[in-house]
């Protein structure tokens, strides 16, 4: 009851302030515009795609892949591999989309479910439109079939489309920055502002529990900041076709899954950042002091996520590092992988850190040195 009143107060203030609402919606709009216009400039999309794919080994699944491609109005041309080096060179030069290699007896798994040792590898250039689309589609189709065999992406990177690569890599960084500033704009004002103006002490005089006061700040502020995150997410979703060079609608189930994970990841670091800024704000003596500390934090987070953006294949230990985990797995998602358990564990880890911070803030609110010190 008391918690509910505390939360409602934050929502009330937010929803009666048009300025704040605009602040929350802006990030997505900016991401969308940025990625649509820059994306357009970086590469031009062909009308119809004819995928030239070298095929080694055979499998019925190629028929499904072909069907998926044709359903999208494109075509595929399967080429035999005469000379591996030539085929590789063709992919590298962007003349062919990929080399797809099935292990012998790959299809056995369809008749005997224990034969799960079939593998398929796809060699492609992730920076080549046809290559990355072909990989995305094949991957989606094979995932959908749901049989157990391993899918390997062997990618080569040409320098031609370096622009798009950079954009893809810095997208998680941009998302983090926008989400951070969304969190900062509401939290600093609400927590440090209230402490500085003496309105927080007025609440401390009542019989509301300190934990209720902490949650009464962090929960609603996180919900509000999530609007900013949601807006960023939508910005990414709508600029995705431009970013990946493929249209969203035909990818079906697989794509929905990765969007869902992406959303979860983005959302998972919002409460964490809000809790961090709230804790800093509670400890600080003034809004000025709180913003100084928060700026340092923001720079730290920005540097971390920028570094993460350009470090290839960080180990799975990043799961334990808040925010960084979201950045890394967002990036993998954007590159077409589907790190399911890593993403879910990251979300859980971020929530754990948040809970710890709620506890710290409660302790701070109970500390006379922090609240009433000189």
């Amino acid at each position, binding site marked *: *009851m*008391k918690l509910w*009143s*505390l939360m409602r*107060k934050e929502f*009330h*203030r937010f929803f*009666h302030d048009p300025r704040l609402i605009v602040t929350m919606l802006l990030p997505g709009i900016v991401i969308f515009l940025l990625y649509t216009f820059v994306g357009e400039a970086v590469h031009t999309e062909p009308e119809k795609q004819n995928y030239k794919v070298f095929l080694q080994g055979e499998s019925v699944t190629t028929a499904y892949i072909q069907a998926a491609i044709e359903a999208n109005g494109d075509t595929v041309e399967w080429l035999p591999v005469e000379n591996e080096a030539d085929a590789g060179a063709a992919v590298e030069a962007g003349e062919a989309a990929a080399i797809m290699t099935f292990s012998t007896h790959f299809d056995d798994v369809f008749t005997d479910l224990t034969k799960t040792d079939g593998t398929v590898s796809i060699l492609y250039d992730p920076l080549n439109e046809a290559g990355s689309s072909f990989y995305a589609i094949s991957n989606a189709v094979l995932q959908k079939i749901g049989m157990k065999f391993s899918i390997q992406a062997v990618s080569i990177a040409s320098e031609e489309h370096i622009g798009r690569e950079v954009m893809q890599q810095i997208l998680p960084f941009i998302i983090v920055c926008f989400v951070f500033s969304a969190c900062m704009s509401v939290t600093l004002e609400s927590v440090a502002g*209230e402490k500085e*103006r*003496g*309105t927080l*002490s*007025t*609440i*401390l*005089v*009542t*019989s*509301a*529990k300190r934990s209720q006061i902490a949650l009464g700040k962090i929960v609603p502020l996180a919900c509000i900041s999530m609007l900013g995150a949601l807006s960023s997410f939508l910005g990414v979703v709508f600029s995705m076709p431009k970013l990946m060079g493929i249209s969203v609608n035909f990818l079906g189930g697989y794509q929905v899954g990765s969007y869902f994970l992406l959303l979860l990841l983005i959302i998972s670091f919002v409460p964490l950042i809000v809790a961090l800024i709230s804790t800093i704000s509670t400890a600080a003596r003034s809004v000025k002091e709180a913003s100084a500390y928060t700026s340092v934090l923001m720079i730290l987070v920005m540097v971390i996520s920028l570094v993460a953006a350009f470090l290839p294949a960080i180990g799975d230990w990043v799961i334990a590092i808040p925010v960084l985990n979201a950045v890394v797995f967002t990036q993998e998602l954007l590159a077409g992988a589907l790190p399911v358990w890593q993403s879910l564990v990251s979300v859980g880890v971020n929530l754990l850190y948040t809970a710890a911070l709620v506890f710290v803030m409660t302790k701070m609110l109970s500390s*006379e040195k922090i*609240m*009433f*010190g*000189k």
Partner: protein
Amino acid sequence: MSEEIVRAEALKKTFTLSKKQQKIEKTGETRRIAVNGLSFSAYRGEIYGLLGPNGAGKTTTLRMLATLIRPDAGDAFICGHSVVKDPAKVRDEIGFMTSELKLEGFFTPDYLFDFFGAMHGVEKGVLQQRKRELFAKFGIDQFAEVQVKNLSTGMLQKVSLVISIVHDPSVVIFDEPTNGLDVLTAKVVTDFLAELKAMGKSIILSTHIFSLVEKLCDRVGIIFDGKMAAEGTLEEIAKGDLETSFFNLYHALKGETV
């Protein structure tokens, strides 16, 4: 004598002085005993005044009574609840007012009354009834929907006062009630205190203003350096003139002339 409602028993509070504070106060000491074994009693329906110079420990004492800070030693009981063992119960029995406690300018008196009512767990029906009565009594009703930041100083003061008693506390604790207020706003406050007394509330206030004590208080405690120098009814302490008695006491204790 009527029922004892607040009892302080040998309250003690020591602060560690920060480097900054040592510099400001030009002192090398690292610890300051702000309140040093303070005991007193206040009775139902009376106004009790803690009178003392700057730094005597008035604010510290009242903050301990209001459970915002914990005594290092000793205890205080409000309506029988210990401030050390049962702070939540105490908070529902008291209304605490100081100039440091502010209301958020964005909200209206109506909203804030409901909000702080909820913070004290006041039942909805009771709360609405109380709001109507108190708003009418103090002339807040026409301003109930005006954002607090747009209210005049006097009206804002009234709203703060009314909100501090939203939960119908039996004891109201007031640190420096008229400090820094212009004469008109100060009158709003003293009238309010008289009104509270008429409503049967018990009040504890701190001040360094003699006239305020003479005008309002039934009982007085004089503190110097965190210790009770004298305590009794206004007549017992003032012996005709509060100011003269105060300085006599000061000289007797400190042996200096001011």
